């Protein structure tokens, strides 16, 4: 392993061993090791250690202590503040990242606290609103009908749920239906566009939260309940009047 060719190939051996090398590099190395015992040995060492670490490295990892998640959740809760002076696309990206960061912590602290606090529940749903619009909220001009939405909820999630009927232009266009997990169970998540802006309606069966209006995480939220279910509308900051009108339409339409 002293000639220039061998030295040049050394870094490539690592990539060949773990499958990251290009076809050209792999061909170069394959040809070379047929006539170079030292590099053939070095390649085998790379493969052996890559496989050992890939297979067993995780077993050497330490598990995060339970209290760490709680402390981080508390730290992040203390950091929360509304973001106003940016467009909704920027805000969506920023909070989507925040949502993923928070959700990446795992469902340890939130299930405990969402059962007690509408504010925390609203915060979690605001993050779900952003996450789901990032994933599934692209507006291609198509509209999901109430029948399609109900069929999707039933077929994809096994939910037999009445999607509130449309009640005028303020209702917006229904784009997609998803199921979200929150602290106390599952929520149907209906994604709308109203005047181009993202608006979410969450329906939480088996939970009755009092009528409320909140502003947090750069969003306005309107809460009400009916027939043993809680409904939460989530929209951008400044959309409260629009949300209240939608809530009124939805409630009147359901009666």
């Amino acid at each position, binding site marked *: *392993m002293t000639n220039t060719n061998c030295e040049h190939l*050394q*870094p*490539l*051996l*690592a*990539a060949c*061993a*773990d499958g*990251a090398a290009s076809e050209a590099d792999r061909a170069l190395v394959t040809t070379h090791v047929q006539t170079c015992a*030292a590099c053939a*040995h*070095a390649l*085998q*060492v*790379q*493969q*052996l*250690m*890559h496989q*050992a*670490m*890939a297979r*067993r*490295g*995780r*077993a*050497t*990892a*330490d*598990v*995060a*202590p339970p209290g*760490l*998640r709680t*402390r*981080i959740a508390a*730290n*992040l809760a203390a*950091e929360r503040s509304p973001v106003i002076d*940016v467009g909704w696309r*920027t805000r969506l*990206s*920023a*909070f*989507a*990242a*925040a949502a*993923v*960061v*928070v959700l*990446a*912590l*795992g469902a340890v602290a939130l299930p405990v606290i969402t059962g007690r606090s509408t504010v925390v529940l609203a915060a979690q749903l605001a993050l779900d609103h952003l996450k789901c619009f*990032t994933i599934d909220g692209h507006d291609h001009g198509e509209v999901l009908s109430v029948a399609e939405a109900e069929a999707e909820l039933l077929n994809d999630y096994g939910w037999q749920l009445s999607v509130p009927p449309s009640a005028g232009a303020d209702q917006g266009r229904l784009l997609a239906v998803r199921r979200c997990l929150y602290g106390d169970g599952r929520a149907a998540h209906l994604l709308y566009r109203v005047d181009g802006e993202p608006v979410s309606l969450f329906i939480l069966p088996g939970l009755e939260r009092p009528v409320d209006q909140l502003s947090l995480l750069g969003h306005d939220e309107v809460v009400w309940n009916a027939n043993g279910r809680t409904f939460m509308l989530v929209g951008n900051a400044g959309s409260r009047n629009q949300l209240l009108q939608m809530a009124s339409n939805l409630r009147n339409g359901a009666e």
Partner: protein
Amino acid sequence: MDALYGTAVRLARSPDAAQDLVQDTYLKAFRARDRFVPGTNLKAWLYTILHNTWRNRRRDRARSRVEADSEAVDQAADQAGDMVSAAPDSPEALLVNAALSDELREALDGLPEAFREAIWLRDVEELTYQEIATALDVPIGTVMSRLSRGRKQLHATLIAARAATNR
């Protein structure tokens, strides 16, 4: 979070320091959330913040920098590696495969930090070379070099430890 914590322990080699590191990482990630690009690898982004946080702490404490590319490291790995054969069913491969998790952990923790990071991020966390290069703020060629040298030294350490155990 376990994955991030596991990486932090590998870096800091202390559970307490690792907890501080992970807490700071999440806090910084939350504050820098507008810089995350949706559709890119969140895990790699968090590792980048973790690595930068760790590097800044080390700098603040004015600790001596690990010379990952030193000739001594190369020579030690070369010498140990050349003594044995690595055929898949060779005694050497059997020794590596028989190594206990504790032995693997000790061998890994004994590596220079730059090698340890590269191996962990690639072989355990399965980041791409580009993601590792971004996280560590080094060129891809350096990632390849560190991986190559790190695995070679890890192998030599493990073989030596197993040989001593079986003696």
